[in-house]
Structures are given as structure tokens and as C-alpha cells.
């Protein structure tokens, strides 16, 4: 990936996604609803990395690694969903702002970072909220992986590796 993303590109991508960000901290969802929401989010992430690889908007090795790991998460969530209920998962839809984000690696880095941050937030809520204790640790292990994806994207884009202050403070 060439050069660090410009502040303008990062802000533009983040703003587009922030407008569409769902509220992940809703309480009172059923376990099936929690898993379905995570599955839709993972499908969106996988679709975004597929599109970026097709358009050369991400380093090939990194894009393939992240895509494969999101697909592993999808397989795991589908398995968990089958164990707790049999509702059909919702179809993933492309997040708004993907088109402009694919125009350059710089724009895509900002876009993907925002989407990964949403994933970390979603798993943080889900791993605490889900009522089945046996699913909390596995969801937490995906949460930690999405945190690592943020670091991988920052490293590739030449951004500071650590975002800043601790979460929840």
C-alpha cells in the first residue's frame, strides 16, 4: 500500500460509516438476535475485503489474510447459531461509502479501520451480553482478533499502531 492515508481520506470514510453505524450496545436482545447481528457484520466485512482485493485497494497478502479470518468467523458464528436457534441469518449488505473508499488504498484504510472498530464494539457488547456463558469466551476471542485487525491495517497504512487511551475510560 502506498503512503499513509491522508487525514481527509480517513475522516471522509469514517464519517460515511458513522452515519450508518448501528447501536451495538442495545440491551435485551436474544442470543439468536445477537449472533445474527454479528453474522451480518462479518458478512459485510468479508464483502468489503473481497471488493478491496478485486480493486487493488488493499495489499494483497493482508487483504487475503483478513478475508480468510472473517470467513472463519462466519463459519464459527453459523455453527453457534445452529446450536442456539434455527432462524435464517440476514443477508449482508454493503456498507454505505464503500464505492468511494475503493478509489484508493488510503481511503480504503480509513474505511476498513472504521468498520473494524465497529466490529470490536459489537463483539465487546455481545460477549458481555449473551446469556449463554459458553459463548462468551469464543465471542471474546473474535473480538480480540478484530482488535488485531485494526493493528494490522494501521501497520500497513503507516499509521500509529496503538489507537490511544484504553477503552471504556
Amino acid at each position, binding site marked *: 500500500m502506498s503512503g499513509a492515508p491522508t487525514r481527509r481520506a480517513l475522516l471522509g470514510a469514517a464519517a460515511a460509516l458513522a452515519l450508518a453505524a448501528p447501536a451495538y450496545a442495545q440491551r435485551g436482545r436474544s442470543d439468536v438476535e445477537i449472533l445474527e447481528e454479528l453474522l451480518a457484520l462479518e458478512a459485510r466485512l468479508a464483502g468489503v475485503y473481497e471488493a478491496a482485493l478485486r480493486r487493488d485497494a488493499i495489499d494483497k497478502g493482508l487483504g487475503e489474510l483478513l478475508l480468510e479470518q472473517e470467513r472463519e468467523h462466519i463459519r464459527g458464528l453459523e455453527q453457534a447459531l445452529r446450536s442456539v436457534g434455527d432462524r435464517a441469518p440476514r443477508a449482508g449488505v454493503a456498507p454505505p461509502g464503500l464505492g468511494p473508499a475503493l478509489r484508493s488504498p488510503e481511503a480504503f484504510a480509513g474505511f476498513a479501520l472504521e468498520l473494524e472498530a465497529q466490529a470490536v464494539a459489537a463483539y465487546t457488547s455481545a460477549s458481555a451480553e449473551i446469556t449463554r456463558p459458553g459463548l462468551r469466551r*469464543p465471542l471474546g476471542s473474535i473480538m480480540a482478533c478484530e*482488535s488485531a485487525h485494526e493493528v*494490522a491495517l494501521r501497520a500497513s497504512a503507516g499509521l500509529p499502531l496503538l489507537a490511544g487511551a484504553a477503552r471504556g475510560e
Partner: protein
Amino acid sequence: MAARVTRRAALGGGAALFLASCGGGDPPPSGGAEPGSGAGLLGSLLALERAVIAAYSASASVLRADSLRLSREIRAQEEEHVRRLERAIRDLGGEPPAGRAAAEYERQFPHLRTQADALRFLEDLEERQLRGYLEALAELPDLELRTMAAEIGADEGEQLAVVRVLAGGPASPHPFETGAL
């Protein structure tokens, strides 16, 4: 064939031995926390956080440039975690146990000769710390406490990835950190 112990395995073993001793000598939170409230588990996580802070401090003598700068940033995050855990224990009616002196922690560390040694040791500690928070997620009885454990766990996942990158490895080698679905 005689088994050959690699330096990495030795450092990992050092981390395991060190961490096994962390909780053992530290008293549980005292005061009026109810049994089963989670205060004891938070006390164990607190002991581990303090030990990891001591490890970052001890590593500073062999870390250089970006590794040194980022290790200081990570240590500052760990100190925020300590404050958060202490508050949570007090909110449960307990009194957080006092930490040990830095020298007491350092006596149990493996000898860190190089930056690579330190980063391997820190990577192992971060991985074990992350595992602790993920295990706490399954055991803590209260939603707010689990949310705190998840938030700190997300930080630990990020820190682990940063240490891996500093050590020259991939940030995210596994789709499921420390476990599988």
C-alpha cells in the same frame, strides 16, 4: 532424541512460572465483598495487571525506539486498567489488595538480554492476560462487570497485536485469539 529447549520456549516458560506466582502470593480483596460477586476474580486480574506493568518497566532497559515508545503507551493503558479494576472491587464492597514492590516482581522475571527477548516475554504475558479476561467473561456474574472485562480484553488484544508487530510477526496470526468457537 534429547529434547532441545529453545530460547523462546524458555522465555515462555519463564512467563508461565512468573504468572503462576503472581496470584499466589497476593491476598484476595478484603472487606465486605459478597462471595460470588466477582471481587476475587477481579483481584486476580488486578494482580496480573500489576505484574505486567512491572514487566514493561523491566523491559525498558533493552527496548529501543518505537518498541520503547509503544511499550510506554501500553504500560499507561495497563495502569488505566488497574485503576478501573480497583474501582470495580471497591464498588463491590471490597478493598483491592496492595501490589508488590517492583524489585519483588523483577526477581521472578527471566533474564532479558535483548529487545527480542523482551518482546517475546511481553507477547507471552499479553497472551496470558488476554486469556484471563476472556475466562472472566464466562465467569463474572454481572453484565456491567462483564462489559468492563470485554472492554479491557479488547485493549489486550490490541496490545498483543502491537507487540507481535514490534517483534516482526503478523498482527493477527489466528482467527480466534486464545480459543475457538
